[in-house]
């Protein structure tokens, strides 16, 4: 296993953007916060973007709640730390206000599809995350407030959604058939008309007339918003593929998260996105005892001593089984860091910082 030097990575001057990706339940949010705290301890000016943090994490950072604008976290460190939460509804409201007049904006806010967009449409959170990343980066270039952006990616059915979501929204806005169905201005493809009639019938059958009407209204605005985001999105994508960005794939040492992490790592590499390392979180910690020492101690141990030694054995066996489960991920040859499971890791900033303080010698 090539060991990932987390401190060395966080010290890299050229690294401006770090994204934690992985399935739910592996500790992405905690690790993003911990990486941000550690980076600030190493002198970076950091802003961390989290998605739906547990209340306790916000509290650990000394904030009652996280807002949608970066707020300073009080931290005694050479660097600085700001934290913010991704707020999809707010981001769309903002975009909407820029696109249309107040009266129309009000009407659209009442549109059921608009209301559902933030919650229901897979891809929305990812889209907004991309947009926010781009915005923070542009701001950082101008006022130098930050030199590192750490991003905790949205929880989704598949970790790949983070990469696919934004494209899905855009493909949708540009889908010629959809445009015909919804009566949007379109490219002239006559052969689509027959299909469109059928698709219109299908949509009408599912949704009914009123809802279908709401959908058209919504999409006309939605299209404008998506196209307006677009030029920025291209820049953000370029940033993500550059050496200034790095993705960290997070997994827990169990078969399902590891399989998902491997898929994700493969995909990042296929897309030419930088993958400086993988983080294997929640590994059972074990005290290191040379096997020879253990074997000789066991021969002379009384029953009470044996209980202690046997417990050590079973803990070591559990850790080995976990590492075996993580092998498909470690085997990719990407530098990996093992992060031990610790009780009460989130109690305060110092404990968050320690999560990575011990990883790098």
């Amino acid at each position, binding site marked *: 296993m090539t060991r990932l030097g987390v401190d060395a990575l966080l010290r890299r001057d050229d690294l401006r953007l770090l994204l934690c990706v992985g*399935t*739910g*339940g*592996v500790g992405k949010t905690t690790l993003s916060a911990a990486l941000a705290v550690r980076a600030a301890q190493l002198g970076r000016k950091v802003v961390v973007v989290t998605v739906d943090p547990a209340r*306790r994490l916000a509290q650990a950072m000394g904030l009652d709640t996280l807002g949608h604008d970066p707020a300073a976290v009080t931290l005694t460190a050479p660097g600085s730390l700001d934290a913010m939460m991704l707020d999809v509804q707010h981001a769309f409201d903002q975009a909407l206000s820029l696109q249309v007049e107040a009266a129309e904006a009000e009407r659209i806010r009442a549109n*059921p*599809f608009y*209301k*559902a*967009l933030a*919650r*229901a449409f897979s891809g929305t959170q990812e889209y907004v995350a991309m947009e926010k990343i781009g915005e923070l980066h542009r701001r950082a270039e101008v006022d130098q407030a930050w030199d590192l952006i750490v991003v905790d990616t949205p*929880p989704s*059915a*598949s970790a790949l959604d983070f990469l696919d979501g934004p494209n899905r929204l855009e493909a*949708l806005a540009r889908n010629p*058939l*959809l445009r015909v169905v919804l009566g949007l201005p379109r490219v002239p493809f006559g052969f689509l008309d027959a*299909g469109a009639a*059928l*698709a219109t019938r*299908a*949509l009408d*059958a*599912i*949704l*009914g*007339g*009123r*809802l279908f009407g709401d*959908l058209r209204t919504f999409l006309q605005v939605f299209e404008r918003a998506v196209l307006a985001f677009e030029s920025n999105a291209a820049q953000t994508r370029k940033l993500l593929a550059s050496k200034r960005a790095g993705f960290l794939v997070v997994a827990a*040492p*169990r*078969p*399902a998260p590891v399989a*998902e992490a491997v898929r994700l790592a493969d995909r990042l590499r296929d897309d030419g996105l930088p993958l400086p390392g993988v983080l294997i979180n929640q590994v059972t*910690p*074990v*005290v290191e*005892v040379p096997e020879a*020492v253990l074997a*000789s*101690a066991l021969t*002379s*141990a*009384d*029953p*009470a*001593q044996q*209980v*202690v*030694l046997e*417990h*050590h054995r079973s*803990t070591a066996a559990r850790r080995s*089984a*976990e590492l*075996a*489960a993580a092998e498909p991920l470690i085997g990719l040859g990407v530098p990996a860091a093992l992060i031990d499971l610790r*009780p009460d890791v989130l109690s305060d900033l110092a404990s968050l910082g320690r999560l990575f303080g011990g990883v790098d010698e």
Partner: protein
Amino acid sequence: MPVRCPLHIVTGKGGVGKTTIALALALRLARTGAKVVVAEVEGRGGLTLATGRTVSHAPRPLLPTRTGALEGVQIEARAALSGYLQRHYRLGFAADLLQLDPLVDFATRIAPGLRDILLIGQLTHLTETHPDIDMLVLDAPPSGRIGSFLGAGAGLAELTDGSPIAEQAASVMDDLRDPTCQTHVVTLLDELPVTEAIETAAVIKSLGLRLGGVVANRVRSVPKVPDPLPMAPDGIDEALWGRLTGALTAEADQARGQGAWSALLSHRTGLNVVEVAETDPSGHGLSLIADQLEAW
């Protein structure tokens, strides 16, 4: 109206082992001689990963059982939409023949709850096309999304007032509120998952659905700690020995801490917590887990 058969919905916070518990529950139910079908709805391949067998739109064997049968099926939005269009409008070919992927994706995801209604509808419809199925187990979305998933019918029925899908939405809610349908919550005995499990149980009840059971997965046994702690044996220095005994007592404290979370969970949900012991992380031992669910 679909023929109703017992439906067990299994949810929980991401990473707590929903798929494992869903499979173990199905295995336990199959032991009574029933033909049980486990369904997954998000195409994550969890069933395939756990069993090594592929799952598709039609139920196919997942695990060998001595009695009964255990099959797996994947409920997918696209197939659910064409199924719905076919059943109600003879329009299944519309979704199948046309290059409708983005449109299907859109229609089934953006309309609030539409996708979920279609998925649940397709699941309950299985018993019509496969009357030999005795029980269904759903490896459901994680608890963060379960409220909107199971409550989609109520929301959609309200929104669409009289549109064609409203009828489907209402019928899905009827199926979910039927006494034969139970929702189970899987958790770990730790602060965050227990907090989320308690919230999830409340959400399920508020939707008018029946809360079946609460399963605490990967429960660690409390190790025996010698009292007093022994001195270091020959060959191990005091410092190292201190760390070894410290690890043992810390583990014991932590394992005992699970008891408090279990008690809180039981108190707040009003249900007995079914505890499932931690097994080897390589994932074998479904049968062992099914044994522990017998008492449920």
